[in-house]
């Protein structure tokens, strides 16, 4: 099993990296004619989500570190961007319908771009401001919810969020 860590920071080397989407939808790195299935980890999911991408094999060993996908060949870049969409997926909140406090937890009912969702946060867990703007909420199960522009949401959402936004 290939375990070599290959930092791909120079364009010339990055161009040499060949990535493919395999038949099961997973990302593969082609190495010496062999295919290694990898997952994408964003090194900075909020500070710089589309750069500094760590490609890891099934044992979580780093196979390659892609500083900038733009340096990849077009086909490889497309494959990487497709995998990145999955790896960086968080639920995008479009409307806040209700926030209720209960014993130890805060119960949220929201509409997301992916459907309606009920989730819970600890009472003393607060939404986090993201470097590029917006808020990030982590629920008790570990799922992440992004509110890209809380100040531009509908009036009711803004009222409900008022206590949680600076």
């Amino acid at each position: 099993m290939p375990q070599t860590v290959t930092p791909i920071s120079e364009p010339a080397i990055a161009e040499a990296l060949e990535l493919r989407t395999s038949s099961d939808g997973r990302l593969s790195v082609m190495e010496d004619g062999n295919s290694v299935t990898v997952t994408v980890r964003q090194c900075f999911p909020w500070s710089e989500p589309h750069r500094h991408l760590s490609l890891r094999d099934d044992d979580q060993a780093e196979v390659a570190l892609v500083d900038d996908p733009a340096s990849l060949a077009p086909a490889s870049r497309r494959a990487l961007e497709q995998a990145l969409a999955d790896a960086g997926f968080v639920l995008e909140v479009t409307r806040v319908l209700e926030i209720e406090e209960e014993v130890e937890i805060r119960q949220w009912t929201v509409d997301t771009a992916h459907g309606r969702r009920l989730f819970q946060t600890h009472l003393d867990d607060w939404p986090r401001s993201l470097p590029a703007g917006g808020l990030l909420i982590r629920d008790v199960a570990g799922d992440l919810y992004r509110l890209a522009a809380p100040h531009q949401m509908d009036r009711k959402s803004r009222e409900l969020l008022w206590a949680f936004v600076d």
Partner: protein
Amino acid sequence: MDQQIITRYIGQPASMPAGLRARIERDWGGQPIHLYALADLDHALMLGHSWLALGADHVALALPIPGTDGDWDVRSVARTAITAVRESPGLSANTLFLVAPHGEPALSVRYTQRQRGAFENIRFVLDEALAGRTVAPSDADRVYAAAVARPIRDAQALVAGRESVVILRLLRYLAPYRRQLTLGLSAAAVVTLASLVPPYLAGYLLDRVVRPAQEGRLPRGAAMTMAWIAVAAMAALYVVRQTAAHVRLRLMSVLGEFVARDLRAELYEHIQRMSLAFFSRKKTGSLITRVTADTDRLWEFVAFGVVDVSLSLVMLLGLGVVLLTLDWRLGLVMTLPVPLFCWLIYRHGESLNARFIRTWRKWSRVTDILSDTIPGIRVVKAFNQEAREIDRFVVRNDDATDEINEIHKMWTTFWPLLMFAVHATTVLVWLFALPRLLGTGHPLSPGVFVSFLLYTTMFVAPIEVIGQMVRTINRATSSAHRVFEILDSEPEVRDTGDAVRLTPVRGRVTFDGVTFAYDGVRQVLRGVSFDVQPGELIGLVGPSGGGKSTVVSLLARFYDVTGGAIRVDGVDLRQLDTGHYREQLGMVLQDPYLFHGTVLDNIRYGLPGASLGAVIAAAQAANAHDFICKLGQAYDTVVGERGHTLSGGERQRISIARAVLHDPRILILDEATSSVDTETEREIQEALERLIAGRTVFAIAHRLSTLRRASRLFVIEEGRLAEAGTHGELLSKSDGIYRRLYELQLQLQ
């Protein structure tokens, strides 16, 4: 409970739809579903409901057919066709791939973190099968519900009930104090009623005595007599009122303390009976808050909230009736705005609540800096970041202060405005009353008007209480919920009704095919069997995470086995009286825990009646006597919280002395010498050798050299008893695990 949590909070099915389950099992020729999980993301990353089911021979994926009423497209795959299981983890979307031969995907599903526990269970069973091991969970519904509900249950181990139900349950704690409660409530009623009389008497005196006397309609002597009687009655009334107020305050505050005391005692007793699993779920601080702050808040509610709220309602009602009876026209002017005032106070409370959450959030940013930088002050100084940390603190402190000042602005604006509105109502009463007092319109006597004015001043207090009633009840129910959450938690380890007491325990320990899984699925121990004779010293060795600590935790009955049985002297551990059994069991842990108290208290913790001579003998056996005598106050020295005034080796020897005095038949040594220097280790080793003589001992040690004297060594690896034998026997196995570990340690020395 878990299914209730899913239904109440998560909004996803609490179990697999019965029709779908029946269909899959039918497709599998009647074989039952062992495990299932909900895939809540589809391949376009939209939220949806697909199901992955696992049976003995098959895995099935059920996808809803769009546009149908609950029809499913079920794809089954034979488990023999699965060669690997892979998971691609993401921030919130995970994908599980069941890989077929040649690397082709047999099935793949996507799900959020919420479902991950349920999918990990399926993955574990499949991985085990691929490794040639069989795991067959028995209750798919329970396992699914437990996995999905666990994060919420860990945060809040109850389904929040209706407030009225919680308050009624809380009020049941008043039952033992019925007499005091009745007296307290009666006294409070007397206070309320007595408050209504003086304004009436004032009006009566004015209309029936003063004015008739001034106008010569009442002889001066009779007037004086009547006036003195009225004044005396008023004085007597005030005496009665204040006596009743005293009785009410005294009885209800004491009664509230009794209720809080009873709750604290019940809570602490219940906490003591809980199993270790409970303590791993709950933070210590949270439990302490429930026993202290929450019960204190409930005292406030029982002592004053209950009476204040109910009597304020009575008071408002009484005032309304009295005012309307005295003069219904003026009465309406005064009473009609009351509901508006109550509503305004309620709304003000709600606005403040949102502001309080905001302030709480900003305040927590201030405390975050404190809890980060004070414990980490060495790092701050080492990197010369004092100025930056001060700046950060100042910014956040200012921010929090601004927010708090907003709250001050709100209430300091609201209450004067409300009082202005109340006074405006009084002015309105004057406006309506004056023409009538001066002879225009319906006649109004000055006495009635004076009574009326005095009554209006009594409106403010009950309006305030009623307006804040929702907040008072919310606070009380929240605290009551937190207390009842603990009281309603059941200990996982419980004695049977006819629990057996072994007297004496001889010390034979038998593990018979023991399996154990903390979460009911992922086995930490897999079919461990051994038989240990009384007096044997068993060394438990093996890689970290292999299951050694689980073996001793099960032996101490901190948890019950998932499968198989543990027998002591031939009796199943689950049949034993746990308290009595643990009296025969001693533990010396890697990080010994000493309580705040003297060395003496700590040594005889398990045997408080032990003689001082026995304590010294135990300390001598533990090589602790000499250093104890050198302490300032010898055995009477207070060791401080967790024994922080002593070194690790000293704490360890005190804990060995505690075990010596306890004289257990079965002894567990869990890394007892791993965190001390060589000289201390030698002294502890000597003490341990005296301690273990004549007992059945299970010793865990990473330094294998410390276990050379063991009767037998058990190598526990990946939850199995991989090797067993004496030190020499195991070393003689050329490809043995023990030999490999031993040689590795020799190379490192």
